[in-house]
């Protein structure tokens, strides 16, 4: 009989779920763009079960991760998203040694040896360098977050944006707009600002091949490219980058299920 396990990643801005069969095959995944403290997690789980045709009872083990992991109390276990991202990234890229995870409100850099996380760094409280930073900037520029990569790629001129603080950067962007700077150049500047900030954090852990980027912001090729330039290193991403935490959670769940 097959073993099904579920991983739920309740982030600050979105909820992701993955069901694994026998710790290998992704049977189903779901994503709702609302995170902890909202109906997002429940909706993501409901959607997942509906799509897969499975029931909660079919799951041998359910593990929650992410910033809001403790808000779901009906799961078998909660685990930090750092461990889950490390596990998920290792599953997708067996040669991984460094993971950069940029989420909605924080940045984490993980060092991995033989699939286990051995060291990590997190950003301080400030939202600079996180997904929130991109959200704020997109709003100021009146563009969709999902269009940032494409627009930034059209940039022809380098513009420097502060990497210290979201509030400072926001007023810098407004003043660039007032001066008539091109939006594409500003967006490229924003990507580099994030990259600069994240690179600093990455150096504290050290970069070792393979370097993998996970989390929602990894979908923005502008940030990935800027970060590759800052670090002088190729970055690998996965098409299911947003689900890496949930995938890791369901992988851990599988391990637990076997021990049950």
């Amino acid at each position, binding site marked *: 009989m097959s073993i099904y396990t579920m991983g739920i990643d309740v982030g600050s801005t979105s909820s992701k779920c993955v069901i694994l069969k026998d710790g290998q095959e992704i049977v189903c995944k779901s994503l709702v763009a609302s995170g902890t403290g909202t109906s997002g997690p429940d909706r993501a789980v409901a959607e997942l079960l509906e799509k897969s045709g499975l029931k909660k009872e079919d799951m041998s083990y359910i593990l929650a991760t992410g910033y809001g992991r*403790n808000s779901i109390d009906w799961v078998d276990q909660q685990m*930090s998203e*750092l*461990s889950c991202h490390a596990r998920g990234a290792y599953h997708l890229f067996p040669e991984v040694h460094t993971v950069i995870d940029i989420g909605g409100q924080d940045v984490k850099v993980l060092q991995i040896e033989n699939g286990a*996380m*051995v060291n990590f760094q997190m950003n301080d*409280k400030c939202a600079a360098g996180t997904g929130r930073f991109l959200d704020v900037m997109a709003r100021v520029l009146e563009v969709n977050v999902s269009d940032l990569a494409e627009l930034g790629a059209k940039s022809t001129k380098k513009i420097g944006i502060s990497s210290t603080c979201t509030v400072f950067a926001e007023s810098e962007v407004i003043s660039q707009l007032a001066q008539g700077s091109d939006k594409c150049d500003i967006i490229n500047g924003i990507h580099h600002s994030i990259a600069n900030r994240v690179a600093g954090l990455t150096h504290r852990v050290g970069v070792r091949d393979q370097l993998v980027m996970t989390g929602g912001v990894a979908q923005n090729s502008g940030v990935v490219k800027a970060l590759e330039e800052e670090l002088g290193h190729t970055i690998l991403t996965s098409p299911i980058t947003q689900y890496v935490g949930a995938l890791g959670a369901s992988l851990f769940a599988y391990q637990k299920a076997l021990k049950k």
Partner: protein
Amino acid sequence: MSIEVLLNEFKEIAANPAKQLNDCKAAGKKAIGVLPYFAPEELVYAAGMMPFGIWGSNTKTINRSKEYCATFYCTIAQLALEMLLDGTMDQLDGIITPTICDTLRPMSQNFRVSMGDKMKVIFLAHPQNRAKEYGITFCMKQYGNIRKELEELKGSPISDEAILDAIKVYNKSRAARRKFVKLANEHCDVITPIKRSAVLKASYFMMKDVYTEKLEALNAELEKLPVCNWKGVKVVTSGIICDNPKLLQIFEDNNIAIAADDVAHESRMIRVDAPEEGDPMRALAQQFAMQDYDVLLYDPASEQNRRAEFVAQMVKDSGAQGLVLFMQQFCDPEEMEYPSFKKALDEADIPHIKLGVDQQMRDFGQASTAIQAFADVLSTR
């Protein structure tokens, strides 16, 4: 008394300092607020008064003290002033304001100007070169001032005998706390991080003889228990203060025990005893001269990184797998030390995390993630 009853008493006291202050005043005793760090509390005790520790607050909000302080003062100092300004500490008869760091130095004058009419504000400048003879002489003079001010409040002299007695009471109390810290490591299943913190914190709000008696009773009970076979991980904590139960709850939730500490509010204040004979004022100055391995104190051999190596050794000796550093926001001494501290830990292959904290923090989501992940890292080592 059972361990549970004793632990509950410590918890109540640690959580209700105001009640302790009220009770002390109701009993007709004078009370003296003692700010961090290294004030010679023994003099207060010898004067028959209650020394009352003021190390900020985990529940108050900075409001009135903004009138006096720049935003880059640490919250410990700002909240200490807040509690004096908002009437929480109105029952105090005086305060002693040491001036060891760049925050406390200007802060001492804020205390003087804002509270001087209400209570005695006793200034204390410790010597930088504390071990040299001229440093000891300077320290004795400073402590002499405190004695004089306290005598004024008391209305009669404080005898040398009374100070020597106080030294004995304090040495005994420090020894009992050092022993408790060791026992808490051996029995970390019973003495969880929150309970450990409450026991040590209660010492700031009690007369030391009463406190010590209670603590010795607890130690005796703990000694009867078999040493626990801890399945979780163990860490050493470091920093100025980490007494917030919400923060310590995260340790408990993740099966992290505290094996030992390098926390100013806890073990750093009880490492050194004073000589019990001879001139008592000199004994107290000598005690300060012998303080060591503290980032807040001048170290003529700082390039040798002795302190960081001392802490690294503590981690190894206590059986901890790693260290959690609570970095107080805007604490210059601690931040300045961090690079060499980190270097020594890395060289000794001791994993650590640094958590930025302040006493205004109410949400510990990020700390919780970091601590949980750190527990994962330690358990795979």
